[in-house]
């Protein structure tokens, strides 16, 4: 990712405020449903699997592996690597891979979360371990 690219500050809302408050402390949260036991991401108040409202915040280890990626070569702000990470806790999520050699990225590679500052709450990205 180009250093020149300015990251947008999350807008946040009452449903997701706890996530961004935790991010400001360097913690990466996911949601888990206590009715069906499934974890999900991005966080919802109602479980997308069983529709229970018994969802709770849980701190993720912030570790996972690359499910897929693509290196965007044609971008006015410079090349960047977009992809999906499958977290140890289960859910997969969209992200960018940062602070790394894009051409060395591969599916299955171990990655961990790293927060990058914005004008508001910091945003989670992933980088190879």
């Amino acid at each position, binding site marked *: 990712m180009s250093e020149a690219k300015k990251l947008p500050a999350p807008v946040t809302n009452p449903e997701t405020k706890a996530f961004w408050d935790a991010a400001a402390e360097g913690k990466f949260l996911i949601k888990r449903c206590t009715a069906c036991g499934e974890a999900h991401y991005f966080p919802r108040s109602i479980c997308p*699997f069983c529709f229970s409202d018994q969802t709770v915040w849980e701190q993720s280890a912030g570790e996972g592996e690359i499910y897929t*990626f*693509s290196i965007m*070569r044609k971008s006015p702000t410079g090349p960047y690597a977009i992809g999906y990470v499958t977290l140890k806790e289960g859910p997969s*999520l969209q992200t960018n891979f940062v602070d790394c050699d894009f051409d060395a990225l591969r599916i299955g590679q171990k990655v961990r979360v790293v927060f990058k500052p914005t004008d508001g709450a910091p*945003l989670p990205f992933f980088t190879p371990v």
Partner: protein
Amino acid sequence: MTIKGKAYIAGIYEHPTRHAPDKSTAQLHAEVAKGALEDAGLSAKDVDGYFCAGDAPGGAWPMVDYLGLKVRHIDSTETGGCSYLIHVGHAAEAIAAGKCSIALITLAGKPRTGPMPPRAAGAEADFEMAYGATTHNAYGMCAMRHMHDYGTTSEQLAWIKVAASHHAQYNPHAMLKEVVTVEDVMNSPMISDPLHRMDCCVVTDGGGALIVTTPEIAKSLKKPLVRLIGHGEAMKGPRGGKDLDLTYSAGVWSGPRAFEEAGITPKDIKYASIYDSFTITVLMQLEDLGFCKKGDGGKFVADGNLISGVGKLPFNTDGGGLCSNHPVNRGGMTKVIEAVRQLRGEAHPKVQVQNCDLAIAHGTGGLLGVRHAASTCILERV
């Protein structure tokens, strides 16, 4: 309850323009509406149902007013590029229920003249927008995983573009008329790994329109009869991130629904219009629709198997979005139009499929690698 055989596509029109800086978007909608009505042999006064999507300036009610229509049924279902395939199904439902008898569906816009307005953000915005998902890289992510899981190659993907270019050479309106080779595709610049420039569709201004009507009205008109016998629609997204699998699309659900309603199988299809925003889009959808096994798409599309007169499944004989036209970055409309041309026997003689009595028009809308809709229409010459 089924829509099988209850609605006919009586009018089609594809705007010949590929670059329209001298026209307004509403004007293009009106021009394609006029073209489709003239093709059917009907007038604007006959229209009593109007269907449009996110490309219609202001939505349905400003368009109905601008066009001077008087309608009793309106549908502005917005599912990106497959909106118009869904509109065909919804028009058939409305016609079968007696809610309208002559439905007009329009698409038009000018992404080649200027940038399109951004689409409205969903609940995921804060958790995704910063990562820069675009059409190129969202489809690139699908292709990357498909290659990983099934050994699909860039050469195999290139064959899809090669087949489209073989067809486009006969289309006087095609934006890219030059026949290309697998090597040409492989040597074109990498845009978003593993997709090269020639794996991507064109960006064009323009549009298209359809007239869907009752069997009785269709039979009173002069065009060869083409009817809808099966329709399906579905959506797919990461859904909380569980069991993420980007190697299949919502076509795995819309396709079987349409085939079941039609009472036929993929083997019966003589011609296939398959949305080709990227080469990988075609490959995944052919698998999802059941033309080959999941993972065998690469082998299926190779060696000219999609070229009319050469391979087993002639596809996108107008040159498709890869070579001819991709109006408003939305490919569903032109997919229906070329399928109807084939069933009428109006395709270019060099690409016309002999005895073409059953065709499929299928597409997706949104981002295949993120969240998207799919719709399948199965059409029959009567």
